[in-house]
């Protein structure tokens, strides 16, 4: 008889989640998705989009970018995780190699730490502004804000420690209210500023070329949509159906994110700030402003909890963490977040758009390689034993545990992005005007990886592909 709780071990560890252990239906996963999507990052993305386009083109660009990128990004992790019960990082062994997947995890861990820092700061700013309003002062001290950001980390720890059921219950309450709050904020903004003013306001710093401006807005949304990739598998494996895993993204990462981004755009091009903590109180009044700020603060916690849960699932499969209790793994992951918040919070926060751009260069090849490998090369058939075999006998051993074909393509794809666009400066090159950077990289990586994989892997019987 097992001396452990198998259900717990699957929710907080590497065991595939079986049908009877699944806890999310479409509504639950949609709420989690909405809770993930609506956080301060969508306002900040809105602020970035507002640099280039005015309101309606921004809404169109955001919807278009989210629709294409999220549906393409999510199809592999949602399908594969739901059907096999494995998380993203276990599945990554199939296309990166049983050791190569740790390269992915290393990058993603760093990115997720940065995202958690950004959202914790926004949580702290929300709480600070509410506190200042009640105390009748202009603002709270930086020390106060820092302490609150650390409290945000502590709250995330508590939620993630308790696991997917608490995440579900939290989001089932918060997510619908977040949508109402966001729509309410749009109404308040339009009442105070005027809907005509919002829809006729000029973008903040556009290029001369309107088509390029629109494409830059689409590209920013591509980046946002693709960067949800690390959060897909952990939740999908808990869904009762593959449809619940996949279509929840429509409600959250596509539609809710678009509404949140639209709010950020509207605020940025009229008030000059996408930071809702700066204008919610003056425009919304004390009561609604405080309510809205509280929900924005909570929204950042729900997002952080989902992010942290997913990455900690991956970390749990690393040898040094495997036998550690879930709480310890979560705590260890959150330590660098806390250190970042103490030592250099603003350096990360103020360069949010660079973070978005750099992560885009990373996730485009990851999404492309994983999708082509799973659907085209493997026809959705994975060797389940190979996913969990950590030795050289695994079919996913490739060469020394690394799929060097995927790693080479991945390594070349990241700088190849610069052929189209510099993600840090948003300076574009001519090819960008015809396909965007993400679109161009996706197509080229798909073709190159397919050809190289066929020649060096499939035809040579390496990697467990069926001929």
């Amino acid at each position, binding site marked *: 008889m097992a*001396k452990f709780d198998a259900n717990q071990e699957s929710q907080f560890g590497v065991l595939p989640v*079986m049908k009877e252990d699944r806890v999310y239906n479409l509504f639950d996963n949609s709420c989690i998705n909405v809770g993930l999507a609506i956080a301060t990052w969508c306002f900040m993305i809105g602020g970035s989009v507002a640099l280039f386009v005015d309101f309606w083109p921004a809404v169109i660009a955001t919807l278009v970018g989210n629709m294409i990128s999220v549906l393409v990004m999510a*199809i592999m992790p949602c399908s594969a995780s739901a059907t096999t019960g494995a998380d993203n990082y276990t599945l990554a062994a199939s296309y990166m190699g049983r050791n190569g997947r740790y390269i992915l995890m290393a990058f993603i861990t760093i990115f997720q730490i940065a995202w958690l820092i950004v959202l914790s700061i926004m949580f702290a700013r929300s709480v600070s502004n509410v506190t200042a309003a009640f105390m009748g002062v202009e603002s709270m001290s930086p020390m106060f804000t820092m302490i609150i950001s650390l409290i945000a980390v502590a709250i995330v720890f508590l939620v993630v420690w308790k696991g997917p059921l608490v995440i579900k219950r939290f989001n089932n309450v918060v997510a619908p209210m977040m949508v109402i709050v966001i729509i309410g904020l749009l109404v308040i903004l339009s009442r105070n500023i005027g809907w005509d003013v919002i829809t006729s306001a000029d973008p903040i710093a556009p290029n001369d070329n309107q088509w390029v401006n629109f494409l830059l807005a689409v590209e920013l949304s591509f980046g946002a949509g693709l960067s949800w990739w690390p959060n897909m598998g952990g939740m999908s494996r808990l869904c009762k159906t*593959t449809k619940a895993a996949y279509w929840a993204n429509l409600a959250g990462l596509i539609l809710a994110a678009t509404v949140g981004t639209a709010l950020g755009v509207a605020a940025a091009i009229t008030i000059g700030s996408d930071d809702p903590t700066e204008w919610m109180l003056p425009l919304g009044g004390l009561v609604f402003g405080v309510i809205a700020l509280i929900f924005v603060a909570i929204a950042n916690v729900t997002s952080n909890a989902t992010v942290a849960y997913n990455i900690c699932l991956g970390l749990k499969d690393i040898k040094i963490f495997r036998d550690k209790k879930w709480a310890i793994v979560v705590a260890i992951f959150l330590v660098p977040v806390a250190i970042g918040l103490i030592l250099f919070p603003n350096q990360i926060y103020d360069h949010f758009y660079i973070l978005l751009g750099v992560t885009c260069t990373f996730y485009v090849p990851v999404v492309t390689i994983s999708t082509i490998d799973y659907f085209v090369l493997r026809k959705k058939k994975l060797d*389940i034993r190979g996913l969990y075999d950590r030795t050289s006998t695994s079919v996913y051993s490739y060469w020394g545990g690394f799929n060097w074909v995927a790693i080479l393509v991945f390594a070349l794809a990241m700088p190849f992005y610069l052929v189209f666009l510099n993600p840090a400066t948003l300076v574009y090159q001519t090819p960008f005007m*015809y396909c965007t950077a993400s679109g161009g990289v996706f197509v080229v990586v798909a073709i190159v990886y397919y050809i190289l994989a066929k020649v060096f892997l499939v035809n040579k019987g390496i990697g467990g592909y069926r001929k």
Partner: protein
Amino acid sequence: MASHEEVYKELKGRTGLNPDIEDELCRRISVIENSDGEIVPHLTKGDWIATWALIIVAGIIPILVEAFRYGLQ
């Protein structure tokens, strides 16, 4: 048909997990393999049609419309 014992024989000591968890893993893998690799069914043809329809209607067509409106300047 993959049995628990067959999977366990192949994976024993190779997963890096403690023996109890490894045994449970092997049991689960045998169940998955006996379900043709799927704990729950994949997305249906209808899901794929809906996905492509959304990508085209709410993704590609608006981009083409905006391209036409702005012109490839």
